C-alpha cells in the first residue's frame, strides 16, 4: 500500500541530494519566484531554458524522470484541450492547412507557450514535493507566514499550515477509503460499466460521509491533545545554511535583472 501511495502524483521521495537538504523556506520562495517567471514565458528560448533548468535539477536530486511525468499525466487531457483551442481559434497572418483545418503559426506558438506554462508549473511543484516531506513544507510555510498580521483575519499561521497539512494527509486516507468502498460495493453486485451514474452515487455519497466522520474524529483527537492553533512549537528545526543563502541571493539577483529589463 505504501509503495502504491508513493507513486501518487506530487508525493515525497526521500533522498540526500542538495535539493533535499535545502531549507523548505528556500524551496518555497524559489518555487514562488519560478512560478512568476514561468507565467511570463514568452518565447521558445524561455521554454528551452526552463527545460534545461528542470532537467538539471531533476538529475541533481536523483529522482527518476518517470516520477515527474506521473505528476503531469493526470492533466494531459486538459493540456491537449487548451492547446487545440489556441491552435484552432487564434487568428494569424501565417497560416497552413492540415487536411481540412486551417491553423495559424501564431496559434501554434501560443498553444505551445500556454501548455508549457502549465507543464512547468506542475513540474517545478513536483520538484518541491518530491524533495521536501509534507510536514517540512507545512512547517516552512508556517514560518514564512508567521510575520504576516493574519490574526486580524481571525486565523493564525499555524491554522493555515495545519489546513494545508490536512489536505495532504487526507489524500491517502480518502484513497484507502475509496478502495474499501469499491470492494464493498463490488462485493454487493455493483456493475460499474452498466450504470455509471449509479456508480458515481454509490461511491461519492459514502465517501463524503466517511470523510466528514474522519474529519470529526481527527478534530476530537486534536482537541484532546491540547491543539489551540496558537503557541505551538515544532519538532522540526529550520535553519538557513550556506547553500540556502547562495540560492536566495541568486534568486534576488535574477529577480532584480528581470524587473529592470
Amino acid at each position, binding site marked *: 500500500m505504501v509503495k502504491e501511495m508513493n507513486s501518487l502524483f506530487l508525493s515525497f521521495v526521500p533522498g540526500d541530494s542538495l535539493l533535499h537538504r535545502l531549507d523548505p523556506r528556500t524551496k518555497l520562495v524559489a518555487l514562488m519566484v519560478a512560478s512568476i517567471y514561468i507565467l511570463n514565458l514568452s518565447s521558445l528560448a524561455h521554454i528551452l531554458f526552463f527545460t534545461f533548468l528542470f532537467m538539471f535539477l531533476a538529475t541533481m536530486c536523483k529522482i527518476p524522470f518517470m516520477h515527474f511525468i506521473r505528476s503531469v499525466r493526470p492533466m494531459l487531457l486538459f493540456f491537449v484541450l487548451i492547446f487545440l483551442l489556441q491552435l484552432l481559434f487564434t487568428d494569424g497572418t501565417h497560416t497552413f492547412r492540415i487536411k481540412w483545418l486551417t491553423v495559424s503559426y501564431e496559434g501554434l506558438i501560443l498553444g505551445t507557450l500556454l501548455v508549457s506554462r502549465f507543464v512547468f508549473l506542475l513540474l517545478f511543484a513536483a520538484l518541491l514535493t518530491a524533495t521536501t516531506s509534507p510536514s517540512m513544507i507545512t512547517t516552512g510555510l508556517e514560518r514564512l507566514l508567521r510575520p504576516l498580521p493574519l490574526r486580524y483575519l481571525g486565523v493564525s499561521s499555524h491554522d493555515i499550515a495545519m489546513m494545508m497539512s490536512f489536505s495532504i494527509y487526507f489524500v491517502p486516507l480518502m484513497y484507502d477509503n475509496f478502495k474499501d468502498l469499491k470492494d464493498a460495493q463490488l462485493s454487493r453486485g455493483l456493475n460499474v460499466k452498466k450504470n455509471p451514474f449509479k456508480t458515481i452515487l454509490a461511491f461519492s455519497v459514502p465517501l463524503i460521509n466517511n470523510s466528514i466522520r474522519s474529519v470529526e*474524529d481527527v478534530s476530537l483527537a486534536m482537541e*484532546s*491533545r491540547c491543539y489551540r492553533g496558537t503557541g*505551538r512549537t515544532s519538532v522540526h528545526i529550520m535553519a538557513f545554511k550556506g547553500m540556502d543563502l547562495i540560492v536566495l541571493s541568486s534568486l534576488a539577483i535574477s529577480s532584480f535583472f528581470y524587473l529592470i529589463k
Partner: protein
Amino acid sequence: MIQLNNVSYCYNENDYALDSVSLEIKKGEFIGIAGRNGSGKSTLIRLINGLLLPLQGNVNVMGMDTMDNDSIIGIRKIAGMVFQDPQSQFIGMTVGEDVAFGPENLGLSHEDICGRVDTSLKAVGMYIYKDHTPRALSGGQKQKVALASILAMEPELILFDEATSMLDPVASEEVLKLIKQLHNKGVTIVYVTHRLEELIFADRLIIMDKGRIIHDDNPRKLLNEENILDSGIYLPPIIELSRRLCSEQVIEPIRLPISREELMEALCQLM
C-alpha cells in the same frame, strides 16, 4: 483527583446519555467501566477530558472545572485520551511527527519534544518505527503509537475509550500489558470496554446502564453478585464457569476465581 457531581448530558433533547452521575476517582486507581452500547461509558470519559461539557452538574479534574475555558488545556494535559480507532487519531505524517503533535501544542522546546518522542516510543516498543508512516502499521502497532502520543504529554490520568476493541487477542494483550505497566508506575487509568475479562485486575469496576452507574465495586465482589447479568453485560466464559462451580459448591464461593490462572489453581486444589 476527579469528581463528577450530578452530571447529566444528552445528545438529543430529553434523551439522556448520562443521567445525574456522581463519581470520584482517586489518584493511582485503575477504574474499569463496562456496559452495553449506549449506556453512557464513552460520554462519561469524554466529559472528564472536556471534549463534552455537562448540561447539569460539574466535572472537576485536579481542582479544575471543565466548564472553565481557561482550565481546559490544563485538564487535557493531565487527562490524556486514547480512542477506539487508532487510525482516526493520527495527525502526523510519520510516527515520530504524530507523537510530537501533543508536546508541540504544549509549546515545548525542540530538545524536550525530541526527548519525549523518543522516550514514549521506546516505552511502547515502537521506536524503530519512528520514521514510518502510521498507515503502514498493523492495528496493534497503531494503537501503541496512539498510546505513545498520549504518553509524550506526560499525563497523570489516561482515559481509554474501547482502545482494544478493534485489535486481535494478541495485540489486545500487548496493549493491556502496557496499560498495566503504566498503572504500576502510578498513572491513573480509566478503561472503558465491553470485554469484562480485561477489567478483572481493576481496582474498581463500574457497570453502567441507561446513562447511570448501577454498580461500582471491586471486580471480584461485583462479578459474584446475583443480579450482575441484569445490567445487560456479557460475562466471560471463565467467570461464567467459576460462578457455576461456586453455585454448585464445587469450589469455595468465598473467593470467586476471575482469571484463567485462578480457576486452574482452584481446580488443581480440588484434585
